[in-house]
């Protein structure tokens, strides 16, 4: 009797496996704010699709771990894999690890994006836009404030090992390299590891030198908020200070609503999340997909922030 039951349940499990679809996803970090919005959006979207079982894992910013996760997904026979790649220069390794299993890259562009096999696709925003949009708007604001004769400021980097951080800081220098914005000078740049409390301390350290400055550019909203908190604590007038970041998180938009924050950049988590799951499902079904989908960043300022309040 017992044996029969076990056999029956095994058959039932195999049966359900045959009809249901399984997607395994690996993300570079579970504790990243924006990626969490993306992840949760994907879980919600997956729940609306009948017969889809969706599982996600944390690569903790460790590429070797992520490659193993992809191999584990393949070994356990998932129908498709979604990867938020830890290191964008390791596209070939991830692509190879997936073998014939359909794979979709989400949010970050792997270096092999132009050589993806037919079973793989890519849905993301172009990272070069984010830092550029933010820095360029700050440049415009400074010009509008009559500071085109010379403006100094600080740059807060995200984690130094993180590619988005490196790219966003490089974007800032590219903007400052333009004729139109070369009146901007960076007094110093340091990392605050994406974190609000480290940014508070860093900003306070900078201010203790007493050097006058006109702007602060940060690789993400959290650090920008930390800088704003520190400057307000020191009694600075946020109306004249220009602060730019990236993410358009809800925390940041409410700081912007209070008039303290000037520029951030919206990255469409819903568009990327649903886009990647839908692309994976189409790959599983063997349908044709657009292999490269770019979802644009959008500039957010006090003028249009209302459009984004309920989004990220």
């Amino acid at each position, binding site marked *: 009797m017992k044996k029969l039951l076990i056999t029956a349940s095994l058959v039932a499990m195999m049966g359900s496996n045959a009809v249901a679809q399984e997607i395994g996803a690996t993300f570079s970090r579970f*504790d990243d704010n924006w990626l969490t919005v993306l992840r*949760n959006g994907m879980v919600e979207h997956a729940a609306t699709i009948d017969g889809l079982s969706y599982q996600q894992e944390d690569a903790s910013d460790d590429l070797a771990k992520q490659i193993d996760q992809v191999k584990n997904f393949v070994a356990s026979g998932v129908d498709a894999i979604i990867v938020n790649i830890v290191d964008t220069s390791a596209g070939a390794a991830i692509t190879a690890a997936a073998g014939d299993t359909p794979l979709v890259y989400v949010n970050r562009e792997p270096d092999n994006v132009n050589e993806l096999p037919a079973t793989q696709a890519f849905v993301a925003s172009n990272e070069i836009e984010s830092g550029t949009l933010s820095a360029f708007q700050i440049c415009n604001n400074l010009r509008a404030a009559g500071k085109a004769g010379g403006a100094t400021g600080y740059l807060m980097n995200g984690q130094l090992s993180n590619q988005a951080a490196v790219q966003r800081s490089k974007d800032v220098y590219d903007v400052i390299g333009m004729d139109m914005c070369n009146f901007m000078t960076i007094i110093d740049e*340091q990392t605050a590891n994406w974190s609000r409390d480290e940014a508070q301390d860093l900003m306070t*350290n*900078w201010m203790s030198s007493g050097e006058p400055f006109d702007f602060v550019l940060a690789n993400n909203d959290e650090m920008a908020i930390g800088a704003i908190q520190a400057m307000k604590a020191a009694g600075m007038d946020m109306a004249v200070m220009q602060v730019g970041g990236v993410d358009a998180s*809800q925390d940041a938009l409410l700081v912007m609503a209070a008039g303290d924050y000037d520029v951030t950049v919206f990255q469409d988590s819903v568009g990327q999340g649903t886009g990647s799951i839908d692309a994976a499902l189409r790959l599983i079904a063997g349908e044709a997909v657009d292999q490269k989908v770019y979802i644009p960043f959008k500039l957010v300022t006090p003028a249009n922030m209302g459009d984004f309040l309920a989004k990220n």
Partner: protein
Amino acid sequence: MSDTSHGTGGLTFDKTKRTWPNEMNILLALIIIVVIFEILGQILPYMNDQSFLFDSRDRFDSIFNEARLRIIILQVAIIGIIALGVTQVIITAGIDLSSGPLVAATAMIAMSFGQTELVNGFANPKALFGTWAMDLPVVVPIVVGLSFGAFIGAINGTFIAFLRIPPFIATLGMFLICRGIALWWSGGNPVSFPTESYKYIGSGMMPVVWFLSLAVIFHLIMRYTVYGKHTYAIGSNEEAARMSGINVKRHKVMVYMIASMLAAFAGVILAAKSETAQAGMGEFYELFAIAMAVIGGISLQGGRGSIIGTVLGAMVLGVIRSGFTYIKLDGSYQLMAMGSIIIAAIILDQYRQRNKA
């Protein structure tokens, strides 16, 4: 050992070998580091003769750059609170690796009971619970946070004292568990926008007030109470402590509970200071807390070390961090330099111990 009220760390007390207290050495090191930064400020061409500690630009009423003095201690105050507990654990010859993730988990949990309902007229977008958990008195997040810390500490202590699991392993396990709890609590989402009264306990120089008051309290406890004497006794010679009638197991559980409650309190304050709680908070805090104690002259073999030493160790780290930003040293070099200083502190300490013995 300069002071017989502390444990002897295997050394016999000998008046002829009496030197000045260990804490004086750390104070001296602190002064030397400050002087080095002052000199660097004078000789580095891009510094424009700016002073490190003194008010070279005439911005304050005093001769010191008050902004610098404040940030030096403010930026180490929260990890310093953890270090006060870690000091006690290390004196019992234990270690606590779980404090960093415990800070994150406690921040998340405490902040969930410290949120405000309306932010600039908007509904709180990060509200975790319903309206019943909104705008509660500040004592609620504090008590919830401390209780969680006590709970985690009791588990740590029980595993270590009663199940004889090495402290390194037990607290390493708890390190992962707490990071998991922090991520699970709100599914990785930040918990933000505290009430005004909750914000206040972490605003401005409040973290420093907490740090220094707790330091004074625990200095007195470690120095003048039975609790302190038993803690040193266990670390110096656990067997002897047991023979002399100390309930070693119960005492160890108590030490780990106190350490975790201090780490939890650090989490409560960190969330208030940042006005948000996030799962990734407190990264490497456990290691910097241990580093403060080590720079402060603690012995990882147990039985030796003091709260004053740890406070000075925290100050050394604060001065270094501020100084590096002052001379505009790149972040990657900062880590290398800070690591070298920690190792140098241990080498100096060992050398000193050998000469004394």
